[in-house]
């Protein structure tokens, strides 16, 4: 009997611990999240989403400055105003060859702002909040980690955009020469 009672105690204990974790998560994260999300959502509604479209058009132009904008400013604005997953619709202003790189850049920025702007992707907040909770448990300054995550994120999406743009260019060139070769071969076969 005592064994059964211990078993029951252990079984319930599993979920008691889970309950404690749940309460600490809800009280630690949800209140700030709700208020902050309300503020940012209101800000976005008052500014108007359509205002960032000009940046999208500018980012499709050739040149160094539009390239920098395309893989830093544009992903940030898209993610901030349109959030995951609508942020990727900003790719429609870019030429085809740049679309994969922009997607790569934008999708890689749906987590780095979470420490500052959780409204961008609240459904995946634990990519940030999981590790951040360890830092708060140690009573260390969380703002430091949040701002560095954001800034390093910007650097990373810039590199990611450049590299993916380059790989896309090579692959598109290879495919074009492949189709040309295939057409030439087909032409020869037809001639023979």
């Amino acid at each position: 009997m005592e064994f059964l009672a211990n078993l029951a105690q252990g079984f319930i204990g599993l979920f008691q611990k889970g309950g404690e974790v749940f309460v600490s998560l809800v009280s630690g994260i949800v209140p700030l999240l709700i208020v902050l999300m309300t503020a940012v959502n209101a800000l976005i509604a008052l500014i108007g989403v359509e205002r960032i479209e000009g940046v999208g058009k500018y980012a499709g132009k050739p040149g160094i400055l539009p390239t920098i904008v395309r893989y830093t400013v544009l992903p940030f604005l898209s993610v901030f105003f349109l959030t995951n997953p609508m942020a990727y619709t900003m790719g429609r202003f870019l030429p085809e060859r740049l679309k994969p790189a922009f997607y790569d850049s934008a999708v890689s920025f749906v987590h780095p702002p979470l420490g500052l702007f959780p409204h961008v992707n609240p459904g995946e907040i634990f990519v940030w909040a999981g590790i951040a909770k360890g830092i708060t448990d140690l009573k260390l300054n969380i703002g430091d980690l949040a701002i560095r995550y954001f800034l390093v994120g910007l650097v990373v999406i810039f590199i990611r955009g450049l590299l993916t743009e380059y790989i896309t260019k090579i692959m598109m060139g290879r495919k074009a020469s492949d189709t040309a070769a295939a057409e030439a071969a087909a032409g020869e076969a037809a001639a023979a």
Partner: protein
Amino acid sequence: MGALTKLLEKIGRSVGKVVGVLYQSGRDSIDQVIKNVLPFMAFISLVIGIILKTGIGDLLANALKPLAGNPVGLIVMSLIIGLPVLSPLLGPGAVIAQIIGTLLGVQIGTKAIPASIALPALFAINPQVGCDFIPVGLALGEAEPETVEIGVPAVLFSRLVTGPVSVIIAWVASIGMYPQ
């Protein structure tokens, strides 16, 4: 008198608009929290509760330590997660990244893993971000099917390089933060 009424009406209108926007924003936030955030918290709490209570946590800590406890291990981790075959499988809902992140957070909280590793770890758990979503994401950007055909492998191969690179950059950028 007419001018005053007009002014009052204008003020009333703009205040009404702002209040309406704020109220709607509040409603959206609550919706988001109930639909997306709380369910995930329930799921994470269950996993963490069982892990902590059963002692699996200690086993996992020992298993994760060689990978997560130092920069080289984190680079290896980002390489594995960023493999073009694995990354689309690990992507959906960022569930894997969220679970590994939460486990690492618990270990950081108990000082089993140093806090200085937090920033590179945030990047090491996430080289697969969006790899499951490339065709849909490109379609949202109104890309042609030919672009999608090339875009999928282009992004996947790029991650193999930029995954580890992001960990290195984050490691350099975290110098001076959270000294032991």
